C-alpha cells in the first residue's frame, strides 16, 4: 500500500519486529501451557502409578486401593458408545456424501449435525437424564454409554462425510460400469478406499469421549465397587477424578492425579495415532 510505503522506514521496521516477536511469544505461551500441564500430570501422577491402580477398586479414605472399577467402567461405556456411534456415524456420513449431497434435507441434517457436534456436552447429559435416567428411575452405565455415543456420533458422521467426498468420482463410475450395484460400490470400493480416513474419525471421536466428564455426572454417576452390570451406576475415570480431586484426603487426591495422567495419556496417544494414520493416508493418495 502506498500509505505504508510513504511511512518512515524505521517505524515500519519497528512495527515488523514487534509483530513478529508477538507471534513468537504467542506460540511460546501455548507451548509453555502444554508443557506446564504435562509436567504437573507427570510429577503428581506417576508417583501413584503402581500395580494396585490396575488391580484394586477405589478405596475408602486412608485405605489402599486403585482404579480398577473406574478403568473397567470407562472402557465398557466407551466401547459400547463407540459401537453405536460408529454404526450411526458411518451410515449417516455415507448418506450425506453419497445419497444427499445437494438435497435440501441433506443440508438440514448436515447443519444440525454440526450443531450437535459442538453443542455443550453437559446438555447431552441432561437430555439422556430426561429420557433414560428419570423414566427408568436409576442412574446406569448404559445411560452413560448413550450420552457418550451421542457425543461421538456427530464427530464420526462429519469426518466420514468429509473423507467420502474426497473419493474420486471415477472410482464410483468404474465400479458401477463393472456392473456392481450401488451398495457394493460403497461397501467394497468407496469405504475401502476411505478406510483410514474413517478410522481416523472414529479414533478422534474416541479421544473426545474418553475424557468427557459432564455428561456422565448425572447418567452413569459413580460406583465404589467393581461391577460389570451396566444397568446400575457405573464407576468411570472422569467422575472419579471430579469426586476425588475436591476432597481433603491426600490419598484420594493422589489417585485423582494418577487417573488424570492415565486419561490424558490415552487421549494424547489416540490423537497422535489418528494423526499418523491421516498422514499415511494423504501421502499415499
Amino acid at each position: 500500500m502506498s500509505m505504508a510505503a510513504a511511512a518512515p522506514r524505521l517505524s515500519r521496521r519497528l512495527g515488523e519486529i514487534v509483530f513478529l516477536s508477538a507471534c513468537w511469544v504467542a506460540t511460546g505461551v501455548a507451548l509453555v501451557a502444554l508443557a506446564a500441564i504435562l509436567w504437573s500430570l507427570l510429577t503428581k501422577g506417576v508417583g501413584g502409578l503402581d500395580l494396585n491402580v490396575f488391580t484394586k477398586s477405589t478405596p475408602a479414605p486412608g485405605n489402599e486401593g486403585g482404579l480398577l472399577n473406574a478403568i473397567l467402567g470407562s472402557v465398557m461405556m466407551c466401547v459400547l458408545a463407540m459401537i453405536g456411534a460408529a454404526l450411526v456415524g458411518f451410515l449417516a456420513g455415507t448418506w450425506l456424501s453419497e445419497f444427499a449431497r445437494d438435497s435440501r434435507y441433506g443440508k438440514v441434517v448436515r447443519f444440525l449435525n454440526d450443531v450437535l457436534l459442538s453443542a455443550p456436552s453437559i446438555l447431552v447429559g441432561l437430555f439422556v437424564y430426561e429420557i433414560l435416567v428419570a423414566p427408568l428411575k436409576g442412574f446406569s452405565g448404559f445411560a452413560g454409554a448413550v450420552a457418550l455415543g451421542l457425543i461421538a456420533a456427530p464427530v464420526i458422521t462429519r469426518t466420514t462425510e468429509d473423507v467420502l467426498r474426497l473419493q474420486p468420482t471415477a472410482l464410483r463410475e468404474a465400479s458401477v460400469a463393472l456392473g456392481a450395484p450401488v451398495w457394493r460400490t460403497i461397501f467394497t470400493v468407496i469405504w475401502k478406499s476411505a478406510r483410514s480416513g474413517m478410522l481416523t474419525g472414529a479414533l478422534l471421536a474416541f479421544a473426545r469421549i474418553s475424557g468427557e466428564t459432564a455428561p456422565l455426572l448425572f447418567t452413569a454417576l459413580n460406583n465404589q465397587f467393581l461391577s460389570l452390570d451396566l444397568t446400575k451406576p457405573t464407576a468411570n475415570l472422569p467422575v472419579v477424578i471430579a469426586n476425588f480431586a475436591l476432597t481433603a484426603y491426600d490419598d484420594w487426591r493422589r489417585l485423582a492425579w494418577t487417573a488424570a495422567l492415565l486419561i490424558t495419556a490415552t487421549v494424547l496417544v489416540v490423537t497422535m495415532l489418528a494423526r499418523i494414520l491421516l498422514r499415511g493416508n494423504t501421502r499415499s493418495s
Partner: protein
Amino acid sequence: MSVTVDVPVAVPAAPPRSARGTGWDRAFEILCFSAATLLLTALGGLVISLVIGGWPALSKFGFAFFTSAEWDPVQEVYGAAGAIVGTVVSAGLALLLALPLAFGIAIFLVELCPPILRRTIGTAVELLAGIPSIVYGMWGLFVFAPWFAKHVQMPMMMSAKPGSLWEKLTAGIPNGAGIFTASVILAIMILPFIAATMRELLMTIPATVRESAYGLGSTTFEVIRNVSLPYVRTGAIGAVMLGLGRALGETMAVTFVIGNAHGFPTSLFSPGSTIASTIANEFTEATGELHLAALISLGLVLFVITFTVLALARLLIGRQQNL
C-alpha cells in the same frame, strides 16, 4: 421451516445410475437415511426434553427467571441472570485473551515457522485441544490458581489506585478462584481451536496473492494486515465464534476454578458461576422438582445461546470456505 420427506430422493451424487437400483440398493439407502435421521431426531429430542423438563420453572417465574439473579434452593426462588452473566462474561474475557494469541500462533505456523519445526509445533498446539476438560480443571485449581493468585492477582491489586475503576475491577479475595481465573483457563482451552481454523484459512490464500504483496515491498506485518486478514475476514470471524461457542458450554474446567457463588460477579476476581457449572454442581443434589426444573431451564438457555453463536459461526465459515 418444514421438512417433508417421505421418500429419500436419491441425487446421483457421483455414480450415474440409469435405473433406481436393486432392492438391496434401496435397503442400503434407507438404512443410511435412517442413521442420518436419527441424528436429527437426537437434536430435536434434546431441545424438546429441555423445554418439557424446564417448563415448571419457566411457567412459575416467567420472564423474571431471566432477569433475577436470586438463586435460593431453600426459598425455592430461582433466577438465571447471575449464571447467564457469569457465562457470557467468562467466555467473553476468554475470547479476548485467546484471540490475539491464537492469531499469533496461526500466523507463526503459516508465515514464520522454520519448516522443520512446523509439524511438531502444530501438533503440540493441537494436543492442547486434546487434554480433557477435567484435567484442565484439576490443573487450574491445584497448580495454576495458586501461582496466578501470587504472581498476577496480587500485583494487579497492589497496582490499583484507591477509588479508581481498576480498584473496583480487582477487588475481592485473591485466592486464585474466580471469574478471571476461569477465563484464563478457558482461553488456553479454546486457543487451539481458533488457531487451527485460522491456520486452515490462511493456507487457503493463493500464494500469488501473498507473493505479489511481498513483491511490492511489504513487510510480513503489512501482508498479514492488508492482504491476508481481509482475504479471510468472514471465515476468521466464524473461527472466533466457534471458539466462543466452546467457551460458553465448557463445564468441568470452569466448575473447578470459578468459585461457584450465585449472583452477579462484582469484580474480575470475585467468585461466580456459569450456567454449565451451576448444572454440574447442583443437578445430582437438587432438592426438589422445581430446583431440577430450574436447572434444566438453565440448560435450555445455554442451548439457545450456544446454538445462536454456533449457527452464526457455521454460516460465516461456510461462506468463506468449506472447512
